């Protein structure tokens, strides 16, 4: 019973810490962004006054016109001259939209206009989101062996002890992922997209791969974009691979934390392998034979220090 009470205490601790973290973020964002917003507001007022002064337009009709323009723009329809040819809903863009829907990134530019489109989005998302998660997890399971287990055993065989081997491997993996999935694509994006800087590129990559998807930067949204279809398909592939790598990182970190006893310390669930991976492979080798040749049925998850399983803690 004592352990149950302890787990509730930890949970409340987490919730409290979470709320504090949110407050902290709110304060910092507020203090950074608010002055800039004020400045922009003043600029807009000045712009409107100038426009109204030098023309025969009265304020009311300008307001009306602006409102209509903004309403249209919200859905991706632009009134500007050079954007009349391109549609937001041709096949490639629709596929890009469907992709942002099922990966839960959800940029929001464009969004479905019609009621039928919204209803279909609901159904499509409800089925597609779990489906995509399943695919991603399945891919990660398969990729886990060559990218994680094999290198770790390689490191072990070259003399490192199990625990430092996992740490070294994890750091290497993080560096490789950051280079290939953040720095390189950011450089490419800042080259292809005219108005993006390198920092904008990294910001976009991060916001997309964490599936936050704020939508302030959306690739292939510029009117005169050359090779637009190819570009959109390339971005979709990048999103999928990037998401997979993020999940891989998360899973590797979780297994590592299991090994080092962090998860049991914080009374969090251990990294359970799914039904797919029934014969669980340990993260490090206990014997020098390569993992593939080992009898899979005999291998069990590594349990250093013979820590009690989470099951038994809960039953108490």
């Amino acid at each position, binding site marked *: 019973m004592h352990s149950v009470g302890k787990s509730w205490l930890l949970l409340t601790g987490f919730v409290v810490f979470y709320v504090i973290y949110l407050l902290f973020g709110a*304060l910092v964002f507020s203090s950074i962004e608010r002055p800039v917003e004020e400045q*922009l507001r003043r600029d807009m007022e000045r712009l409107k006054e100038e426009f109204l002064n030098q023309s025969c337009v009265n304020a009311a009709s300008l307001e009306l016109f602006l*409102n209509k323009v903004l309403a249209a723009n919200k859905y991706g329809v632009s009134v500007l001259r050079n954007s009349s040819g391109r*549609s937001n809903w041709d096949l490639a863009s629709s596929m890009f939209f469907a992709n942002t829907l099922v990966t839960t990134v959800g940029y929001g530019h464009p969004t479905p206009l019609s009621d039928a489109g919204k209803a279909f989005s609901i159904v499509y998302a409800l089925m597609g989101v*779990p489906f995509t998660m399943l695919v991603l997890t399945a891919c990660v399971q398969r990729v886990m062996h060559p990218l994680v287990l094999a290198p770790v055993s390689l490191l072990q065989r070259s003399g490192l002890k199990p625990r430092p081997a996992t740490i070294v491997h994890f750091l290497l993996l993080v560096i490789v992922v950051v280079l290939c999935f953040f720095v390189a694509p950011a450089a490419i994006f800042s080259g292809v997209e005219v108005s993006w800087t390198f920092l904008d590129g990294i910001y976009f990559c991060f916001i997309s791969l964490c599936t936050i998807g704020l939508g302030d930067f959306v690739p292939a949204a510029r009117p005169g974009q050359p090779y637009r279809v190819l570009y959109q398909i390339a971005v979709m592939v990048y999103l999928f691979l990037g998401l997979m790598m993020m999940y891989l990182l998360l899973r590797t970190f979780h297994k590592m934390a299991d090994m080092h006893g962090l998860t049991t310390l914080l009374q*969090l669930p251990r990294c359970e392998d799914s039904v797919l991976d029934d014969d669980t492979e340990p993260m490090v080798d206990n014997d020098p034979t390569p993992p593939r040749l080992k009898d899979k049925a005999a291998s069990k998850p590594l349990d250093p220090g013979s820590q009690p399983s989470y099951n038994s803690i809960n039953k108490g």
Partner: protein
Amino acid sequence: VAAPDLLDPKAAVHNSKPRLSFSAKPVVLNTPEDECDTRTTVMRWKTVSAIFFLVVLYLIIGATVFRALEQPHESSQKLAILAEKLEFLALHSCVNSTELEDLVKQVVSAVRAGVNPSGNLSNQTSLWDLSSSFFFAGTVITTIGFGNISPHTEGGRIFCILYALLGIPLFGFLLAGVGDQLGTIFGKAIAKVEKMIKWKVSQTKIRVISTLLFILFGCLIFVALPAVIFKHIEGWSTLESIYFVVITLTTIGFGDFVAGEKGHLTEGTMLVQGVGEFRAHAAEWTANVSAEFKETRRRLSVDIYDRFQRAASIKRKLSSELGINASMNQEMTPGKRTLSANLCEDKDAYPSLTNGSLYLNGLSPDYADRQEIAIIENLK
């Protein structure tokens, strides 16, 4: 032949508790187990690539449907706004097209920065006051990311990246913790429901039905109820409310509809917290179901193994009765096993086992010795 934990009856009980994987994503896939390693790997690759192609197909289907639904709507909107523009220009002849375009461009970028140029600018509430920033921080951590507010300064963006790097795992921990606590509660509730049902339905069916019932119940609480509330508060239509709730709870978060834009931020923040609950529940249920599948497979394997053991012991008894190599220590070769099997009429010992090594159909005693050798060669 048998994995160690099959012999342990406790293992089945242990695994009956729903377990939450850290990433809190559902994984329910049954791949058939194989003896041979390479065959398992190949089969799993096949399964994965099959699923992958299914996803691509799903995307293409979605793309065609979206295009069919949205493109006509978009064209009519375009025509409408162009007509407005021309009308405006005709009405106010002192404005030329380029000036207007400039103004529109500036207005659009201002709106994207969160400043609405229409109306009186001075008494608009800031988008970055404390409560709105709190809401924004919440949408970042839960990865919903509406996007109606987004940082525009370089410093803001860098901070956003760092903030999310720490905050998303933190939220993940919270989800895992909450989900696990819920799991114990739900597990007990399901067990109670199971006890109440006295029919002769298999355990598996009861579990699945009760889990489905809880999913339905949860959908009502987390989708229908908030949709009604938001429809009332924000004045959206029914479809728009349900659309908003689903898009938010799946953390897609388009941002075309945002609760709290007109100032009801408390509800908005509560909804953001509700995402955590929803995801914890969803993950819990899927973990439940996958644990259920796992246990069913184990039970079946245990079942088969039990019958195998029983069959083996019966065969041994029979072989001693028949006087075939009773005193010898060597194992019965498949040929001789089949011989005794075919000789005895006890077909009940092998109910559903069509395992090739046990039940070589058509093997008559005359050819036993020759075939025996062939079998041994084959097995090697």
